């Protein structure tokens, strides 16, 4: 789950990381009020869950409350990478001397958290990573022991941070580690962490992603989820524990297992078709879940055919077949359906679907070819 900048920074602040004064606003008038409270120069920042807001014109500086209101009006009318801007963060503008990149994330190769920092912070950090990776310091953290103070100090030294800032930097590093650990983050990023002209370290921007698998111990964070920022079908899918991603093709797919779901898409493409979605019903799905999955697939008007590819293991084919029957009864789909059932209870499943007017397939290649043909109306 991604958090907005303003949410991330509120969390940072709770863990002792200094952030600019400011607040989030949903209207231009609110933005003006906040600007009046803050005084001085103001930054208006669109709150959308994608990168590249600055380049898209979603971050602007205002010299006074009136301009703040104007800019907020503009930004709240924007759409960035397809996402409408519904909120803006109104922050005091900082006079920046240096921009530092600072993050903790998971290093899956090392199986450990990793702290990363660079004196070349800011929006171009990925370019730095690609061209001069030696400018980015990485330190692995022992997951049982946590970040040690000396490690933070070594990082401060390695990015040539002036010694006057070490103490504060170490405090921020400890704070960021606690944020990462206690929120089950998979990313806690400050970019930029700035040295201001008045010699303070401030987290000017923040980005956090929380591990969805750890939500059971974070009821407070779950409330922060911004469902306005998701496609409704994805929200619906999550409700049922399904993993769904909408794509641009016209062949709906329902598969058990992420690897097999991707493979089904690959094979559809290999035989000249275009998948309409990625949909993994997971392991052990019951009839209800399967029915929900089918409804979600069919909400996409571009879908011209549906491929069900189920290889039973922990999932039982008869349960899947029952779900399909329930959903067919409910949504009365008009598009052709290709179904392939193999593995646990496949025989029982096939029997249940015998009278359901579906195209059956034996192999994956066969199933893919038949769904490509069906989508083309052949």
């Amino acid at each position: 789950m991604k958090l907005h900048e303003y949410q991330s920074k509120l969390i940072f602040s709770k863990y002792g990381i200094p952030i600019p004064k400011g607040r989030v606003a949903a209207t231009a008038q609110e933005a003006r009020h906040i600007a009046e409270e803050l005084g001085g120069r103001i930054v208006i920042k669109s709150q959308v869950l994608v990168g590249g807001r600055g380049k898209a014109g979603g971050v602007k500086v205002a010299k006074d409350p009136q301009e703040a209101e104007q800019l907020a009006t503009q930004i709240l009318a924007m759409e960035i990478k397809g996402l409408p801007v519904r909120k803006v963060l109104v922050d005091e503008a900082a006079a920046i001397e240096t921009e530092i990149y600072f993050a903790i994330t998971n290093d899956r190769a090392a199986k450990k958290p990793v702290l990363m920092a660079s004196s070349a912070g800011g929006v171009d950090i990925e370019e730095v990573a690609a061209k001069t990776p030696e400018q980015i310091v990485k330190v692995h953290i022992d997951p049982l022991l946590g970040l040690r103070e000396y490690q933070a100090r070594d990082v401060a030294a390695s990015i040539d941070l002036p010694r006057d800032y070490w103490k504060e930097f170490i405090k921020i590093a400890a704070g960021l580690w606690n944020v990462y650990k206690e929120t089950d983050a998979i990313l806690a990023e400050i970019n930029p962490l700035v040295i201001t002209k008045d010699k303070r370290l401030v987290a000017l921007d923040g980005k956090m992603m929380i591990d969805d698998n750890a939500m059971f111990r974070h009821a407070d964070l779950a409330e922060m989820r911004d469902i306005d920022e998701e496609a409704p079908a994805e929200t619906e899918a999550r409700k049922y524990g399904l993993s769904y991603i909408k794509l641009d093709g016209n062949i709906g797919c329902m598969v058990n297992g992420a690897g097999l779901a991707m493979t089904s898409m690959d094979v559809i493409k290999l035989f000249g078709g275009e998948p309409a979605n990625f949909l993994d019903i997971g392991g052990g799905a019951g009839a209800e879940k399967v029915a929900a999955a089918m409804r979600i697939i069919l909400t996409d008007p571009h879908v011209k055919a549906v491929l069900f590819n189920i290889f039973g293991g922990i999932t039982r084919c008869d349960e899947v077949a029952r779900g399909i029957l329930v959903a067919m009864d409910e949504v009365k789909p008009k598009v052709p359906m290709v179904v392939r059932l193999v593995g646990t209870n496949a025989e029982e499943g096939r029997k249940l679907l015998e009278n359901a007017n579906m195209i059956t397939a034996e192999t994956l290649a066969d199933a893919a070819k038949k769904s490509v043909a069906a989508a083309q109306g052949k």
Partner: protein
Amino acid sequence: MSILVDKNTRLLVQGITGNEGLFHTTQMFAYGTNVVGGVTPGKGGEWVLDGKIPVFDSVKLAVDATEANASIIFVPARFAPDAMFEAADAGIPLIICITEGVAVQDMMRVRSYLDQKKVRLIGPNCPGLLTPGEAKVGIIPGDIAIPGNVGVVSRSGTLTYEVLYALKLVGMGASTCVGIGGDPVNGTNFLDVLEMFEHDPKTEKVVMIGEIGGTDEEKAAEYIASKMTKPVAGFIAGQTAPPGKRMGHAGAIIEGGAGTAADKIKALESAGVKVAKHPEEIPTLLK
């Protein structure tokens, strides 16, 4: 011969009285796996499978009574880390965790602790192990594979079944099939299993099923190129997948450009691996 599990494996099932635990215990037992006991806290003293398998309150009690040497975990995700710690502390040398959805920071702690104890973990979020004709330790349907000389290792669950099934349809069998699971932090990886297959006399050919994300396939390719003498065929899922939801700049820095299907296929092909266009092609590539 085979790797990791065989007729001598004395298997414990953690979460044996749950829906999935019980269903798959029945399947494993029917297959002939030597399931010696199960664990469900609070249900010690009960029996399952018509009095054939005893249930214990803890792994330690179960190990004391049964001399189990492997444990398979079917407990819900939030309890799975504790189940792994418990098995490791009870001296179980091989843990197979089927559970899906374990939090990644939990897994980092588990992995760190298990490494200290030199315990081998398969999974989590994996289909487990199958040594056809000897032992089924997991959820891979037993009837889709026959004994043979092909070692199969895979990050994916159901995709693995496709491959085993495709092999069976042409009369090819597996020595052992290892589902290592697709989670970002897991126990055993491709390289570990390839090494075991390389040293297993029963395995003559190897199939490796990867997918996008991470760099384990690239590392496996290095090993194959430098150390492996047995032929390897492979498949990488996710060639048409859209780029995943990005983890800010950090993801880009950590993973670099790596992790795409194209990269992995290239790495494997450079290492001499025959990479299939779709999984049902694999048997042909092994001939």
